[in-house]
């Protein structure tokens, strides 16, 4: 195509192979003029190397930190769908009747009018659905370019709940967790993210360090 010769069109055309999906040259962040630039940039960096946490969480200069955190959390919730899919096959309401990690806490599902002891799989799904609703809410997040301070504060509670999904998988469905983690490095990235921006306090992070290369704790937090 003549057009493409002069200008790269970053598009997934119907009929393209799975391996070619989103396989286009990276676009420098400065050249992204869309309102979804931050999301584009984050996804682009993750796609390049999902294990390179430093690169993924290195905020571009002059970027609004609220938006940066928000977009990352969106990305986490989205990728957590993958873990939920895997858990759906194994985490049954009969076996995991409550949302637990260690024996210390039972988590109540906040998606209901009065918090409920949902089975773990329901807790997972409800938390992700609730996060999707909140993060897409026109009331709290009407813009993806600037986010008001009161809405940024909402991200913390989402992060805390989302972390429980990781911890449940880790303590009760270790095989799934490991397979998922190997593929996505999501839990490491999440831990790094919440630590770096001090979104949730350290004593809540009950998972042991996942491996030695994880730069948790080395950062400014």
């Amino acid at each position: 195509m003549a057009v493409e010769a002069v200008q790269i069109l970053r598009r997934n055309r119907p009929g393209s192979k799975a391996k070619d999906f989103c396989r286009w040259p990276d676009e420098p962040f400065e050249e992204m003029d869309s309102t979804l630039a931050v999301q584009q940039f984050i996804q682009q960096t993750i796609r390049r190397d999902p294990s390179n946490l430093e690169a993924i969480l290195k905020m571009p200069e002059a970027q609004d930190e609220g938006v940066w955190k928000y977009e990352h959390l969106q990305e986490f919730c989205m990728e957590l769908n993958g873990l939920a899919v895997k858990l759906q096959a194994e985490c049954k309401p009969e076996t995991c009747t409550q949302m637990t990690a260690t024996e210390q806490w039972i988590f109540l599902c906040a998606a209901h009018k009065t918090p409920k002891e949902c089975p773990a799989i329901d807790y997972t799904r409800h938390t992700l659905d609730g996060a999707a609703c909140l993060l897409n809410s026109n009331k709290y997040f009407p813009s993806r370019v600037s986010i008001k301070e009161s809405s940024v504060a909402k991200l913390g509670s989402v992060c805390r709940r989302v972390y429980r999904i990781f911890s449940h998988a880790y303590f009760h469905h270790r095989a799934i967790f490991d397979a998922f983690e190997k593929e996505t490095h999501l839990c490491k990235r999440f831990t790094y993210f919440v630590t770096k921006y001090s979104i949730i306090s350290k004593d809540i992070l009950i998972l042991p360090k996942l491996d030695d290369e994880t730069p948790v704790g080395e950062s400014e937090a």
Partner: protein
Amino acid sequence: MKIPTAMDDSSVSHHNGGQVGSQIGVSVNNKQNDEPSQSVQYSIPGILHFIQHEWARFELERSQWEVDRAEFEARIAFLQGERKGQENLKNDLVRRIKMLEYALKQERAKFHKLKYGVELQQGDVRPPPEEPPAEPEPAERAQWKQGRQLIKQYLQEIGYTDTILDVRSNRVRALLGLNNEEVENPNYRNYDKQQHDRCDYSMNHMVRKYDYGKEPRKSGVSAGGGYNEEGLSVQETAAVFANFEFLTNQEMDMDEIDDLDAKQSHHPPGKQGEEVDHEAEEVLNELNLLTEREADGGGQGDEYPVGSGSSGGSAVAAGAVAGAGEADEEPLALGELAQLTVSNEPEAYDVASANKESFRKTWNAKYTLRSHFDGVRALAFHPTEPALVTASEDHTLKLWNLQRTVPAKKSAGLDVEPLYTFRAHTAPVLCLAMGAPRSEECFSGGLDGTIRVWNLPPPTADPYDPYDPAVQGAVLRDHTDAVWSLSSAHGRLLSASADGTVRLWAPRAARPLLSTLRADESPTAPAPAAADFADAASRAAVVYRDGTLLLYDLETGQPVLRVACDSPAHRVRSHPTLPLLVTAHEDRHIRFWDGVSGRCAHTMVAHLDAVTGLALDPNGLFLLSGSHDCSVRLWNLDTKTCVQEITAHRKKFDESILDVAFHPLRPYIASAGADGLAKVFV
């Protein structure tokens, strides 16, 4: 000086000093009383005086009487005038009632004729008879109630709940409240009438909607229709009564009207919360659109059973329906009254027909569906319900019920929250098809190469219900690469994949794969981009990435038609009734192909950028296209002209709109965007 003895004490003294005279007079009088038998001495001047005096007195009295008489006469005239006025009014009302009765009968006959194609056997279709309308018999009343129940049931089936009916009747009452106070003022009355018209207009649609629900089950309907007819006549009588009673009251007794107003005013506030309001508004809106669409249909072939001519009739029926929503026991059936009085007026027709003629549908954004974390690749409407499913690059599908909305902050649009999130794909979901004819299933194809069958949860499901694994159906895994297009018809499914094949499935069978269509065995052959059933699902139209369009015979699995085109295609759709194929191309063109000869019937530059989405309306009159230029365009298929352009989505990288869709039954269109939003227009 002699004093007249007979002189009355009341007389005015005409002589001497008044004071002395009167004193003397009194004494004389006393004397007279004491000795009545005493002969009286008359003197001429005394008599004259007396006569003069008497005359003056009579004169005085007479003038007084005259004044009184004039007063009474005036009063009589006034009363007579009043009586005359009352009589005129009464005559007028009686005439009006008769006119209405007559018009109603005629309309009912017309309606019946249009609906069943037979002349209604109605003995008494003739100009107003002289006898007053009869009180409904108890038996009739029972039947009427039954009919009403039936209508109510239909309405509920199609999704009109009591709340909406209530809101509606409350509105009618509110309008009527105005009517009561302002009846004397002709201007206001006109305004009021318009209000009623509007109201009726929307009622009108409600009934049509009910017709929709009814149509597919014709056999069961004739009985229902009968009830309807019956119910109506009783209803009408009752309403006419109410009318009469009410109007008389109004003339005679203003206090009572005040009472009435007060009574009406407590109806609404309890119920009309904001949510209900919203819902009602939404429904009203939807209903308005429905007619508008019907108007369209009427102009172009009229697939709807209710012709425009019968609108008056159905408006009356709507009145009855609205009435059904109200308390049965209410003695003053004001709701019915409102519709009856207005909908049969000639003006009502004028308004309706004018609206229909001048009408040109404009679609407006109504719902924004936000909940996906990444671009929405595909969307499909439920075959009957106001619901849709979206498929996104965030690996999920979501089900949305457009009747469960959250009022958005300041914009006119409404936000919808998803009813259910389908999780099972492990990669972006790329395509979607609704089950046909089974409406409770849908299929999705993803970048992971799987096609998944889903059993749709009911539209009443709560997003936070416990997880039900039964929602996930079979998984079709034969494709070895991304599945880019799905199309469903007659219980079969057609999929196009980047592995180079198009496959035909019977998704619920034990061995679901029916056949594999392959244009070229060589591994470098271009992959299919999209596929669609054509010719009543006996053929498959497939476009390839190199722009080739192939038509396969599904019996033999062999291509029967091959057309080459130099621009990569993104979508193909076959016309619902004509042998016409429409393709969307990277080079901004939409091309139309004759499905028999393969001739290019028309080609047009449709957008400023690659055309990505195509949808044909169920009647095959309009084409909807979406493009990476961020706009959705609606085309008149007949003239191939753009009817409307809507800028709907933002860009993510160089992608914008990824899919568009028409609702198969209801007036909704939708677009899906790379910005993670889906929008529904009404």
